[in-house]
């Protein structure tokens, strides 16, 4: 049932590649968002601390 006969290699390879591709899609998008958020927050904090009253 699980080996799908002579098509097993093609079927399982397809599903494995799909899982990796979807993980890559989610991780790359999430990573980009987190990187930009960190850099935006860092920049924002730096610009606030440069102000004479500390941004308040």
């Amino acid at each position: 049932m699980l080996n799908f006969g002579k098509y097993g290699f093609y079927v399982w390879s397809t599903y494995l590649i799909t899982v990796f591709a979807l993980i890559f899609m989610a991780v790359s998008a999430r990573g980009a968002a987190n990187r930009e958020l960190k850099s935006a927050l860092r920049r924002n904090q730096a610009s606030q601390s440069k102000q004479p009253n500390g941004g308040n």
Partner: protein
Amino acid sequence: MNWVWFHKLASPPSAYVFATRLRPWLFWVSIVMMLWSGWQALFVVPMDYQQKDAFRIAYVHVPAASLSLMVYSMMAIAAAIGLIWRMKLAHAVAAACAIPGTILTVLALVTGSLWGKPMWGAYWVWDARLTSELILLFLYLGYMALRASFDDISRADRASAILAIVGIVNVPIVKFSVVWWNSLHQGQTLSIFSESKMDASMITPLLVMMLAFLMFFGAALCDGLRAEILRRERNASWLSELNQ
């Protein structure tokens, strides 16, 4: 009808908050749907009388291929809106579509090759459908390369938008290539306007998988859009509220 909520979404802070809230819902619902339809596709759905078990590849190949076209269309429409109405958020949406679209196109080509080998005896043939899908991949890569070649975001937006709009001519070519030319690739299995050639027990998991892929792409788009908004709004005052 009150469209204020819709117009509000066009502002970067509102779009950022909306994408942040929507993303986990789309992601987790798509995961559940994928697990269910994957289980159905591999263990429940009966084998095809002609293609035997190789037909199970369709459950990931068809969603990836159809979505690669849909994402390109969305990217081109967003780019056109950005170009015509000078809407920055539309350019951000177009830019955020590029990486997921490229991954889906590569996935469609690779899974198609893995389906082609047992059915046609070759991983690749220079068939109209396969060649036009490969051109779609080059369009996505060209779009990203063009964006990366500019330091100024607004210039990158304009140049890449023109490429995206011109490239949309390839979308109907991919879609109808199996109708217009003699193709080794099988014809349309799913159609909105005519009865499906597949049995109901086989088609339901496929439709659920297609919806799951769409929602998964939606989740990736939300993250990509957040990154694009942050990149464009570096000096905006609303960012200080994220600190709190």
